[in-house]
């Protein structure tokens, strides 16, 4: 993307960042569990923007079949769902370790990237519970290659910023946390 593209207003949509950053969770969750008593609820999802083309639909169909097959081999399950904003979720349930969830989610994003649609990936969401049973989400932004916590509070469209900032301080050493707070986008209506 050169100066010329910027001048004439032609910019491509950014593709996903390096993959290792997603895998940071597979070690960071140990710290969450042992030091903060925050445990995985065994569910994760990846959300992407489906294109209404036959090529994209075929790619997604193949990818979903592979993911569902491998998930059931590992004693997990996978399902897909469309939300009200027209985005597609692929939801993975695995009672085992967080590593398996990360591997499965990475499999989905890799398939979408290899199909040539990497720029359609939005983010991945991993859900956790703290000692009191309150829900905590860790969201991985594919464009930025960074993580941020998202803790819904009681009430409509309310989030607990205080808790999120605490989590940043607690896990920031191990998880690459998004430094710009204005990019901690909430995801309301997570379908799991």
């Amino acid at each position, binding site marked *: 993307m050169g100066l010329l593209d910027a001048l004439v*207003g032609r910019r491509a949509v950014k593709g996903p960042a390096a993959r290792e950053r997603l895998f940071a969770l597979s070690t960071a969750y140990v710290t969450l569990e042992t030091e903060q008593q925050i445990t995985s609820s065994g569910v994760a999802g990846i959300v992407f923007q489906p294109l209404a083309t036959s090529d994209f639909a075929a790619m997604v169909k193949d990818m979903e079949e592979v993911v569902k097959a491998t998930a059931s081999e590992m004693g997990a399950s996978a399902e897909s769902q469309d939300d009200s904003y027209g985005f597609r979720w692929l939801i993975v349930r695995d009672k085992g370790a967080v590593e398996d969830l990360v591997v499965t989610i990475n499999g989905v994003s890799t398939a979408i990237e290899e199909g040539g649609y990497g720029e359609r990936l939005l983010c991945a969401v991993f859900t956790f519970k703290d000692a009191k049973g309150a829900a905590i989400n860790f969201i991985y932004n594919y464009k930025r290659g960074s993580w941020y916590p998202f803790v819904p509070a009681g009430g409509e469209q309310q989030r607990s910023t205080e808790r999120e900032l605490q989590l940043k301080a607690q896990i920031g050493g191990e998880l690459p946390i998004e430094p710009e707070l204005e990019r901690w986008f909430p995801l309301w209506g997570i379908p799991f």
Partner: protein
Amino acid sequence: MLLTMFLLGLLYVALIGALIASGAGGVTIAVVAVVLFSFQLFASDKLALATMGARVVTPQEQPELHAVIERLCIQADLPKPRVAVMDVNMPNAFATGRSQKSATICATTGLLAMLEPAELEGVIGHELTHVINRDVMVMTIASFFAMVSAVIIRFAFFFGMFGGGGFGGGGRGRGGGQNEEEAVLVVILVSVVVYTISFVLLRALSRYREFAADRGSAILTGRPSALASALIKISGTIERIPSNDLRSAEGMSAFFIVPARAKQSLMNIFSDHPPLDKRLAALARLEAQLQGTSK
């Protein structure tokens, strides 16, 4: 678009040349220019929002609009802009702000009521692309010298009316006075020419940026036809709205998604938005490319 930019630049160089050649009040002109430029850059967006009666809204007030903007911001890798709503039935949207961090996206209540989520996403994608492309900055810089010319013309009228014989008949020598008068006349003439030509070129530039924003929205959302559908819906109602409602919106029309004018433009060259059918044709081409059915 590059040719338009080049011509604008050339025009402005000519203007500066004429100003320097005249030698009249170089410092004054520079100071006035800097003041005007900073005002336009730093205050115009707040002024625009205030005069339009737009109100910044929280996620609790407009959860849908915020959610659409948030998802597109993740997709576009943008910081979240301020979100404002204008309580007007005319369906429209615009973006302001000199940089990505100071941007505001504003939609009217009419727009929110009229469009389906996917269509709204297309319109918001168009406005976000204006933010990504820094179109407010581009248009401010591009229109800057046109504004300087306009100011010079106004000053000229002022002096022409109140200082009539002052140049020639003052305490100065006769010959020197005449030279100065000629120089001032040349500057005024050049300013008029610069203003006229830049007016046409600016409109052309604005139309290019609109096409670019449509294209950007289509790429961002992956749904060119949803934006096309939104444009058809919006333009359909705008033409039916009484004109006195529209007058108040006239000043912002360069950043509206569809210009707020009831009557058909006289000529395409004077229009700051491309005609609807051309925009729809461009979106149809994008949809064909996306579907892999073009050529």
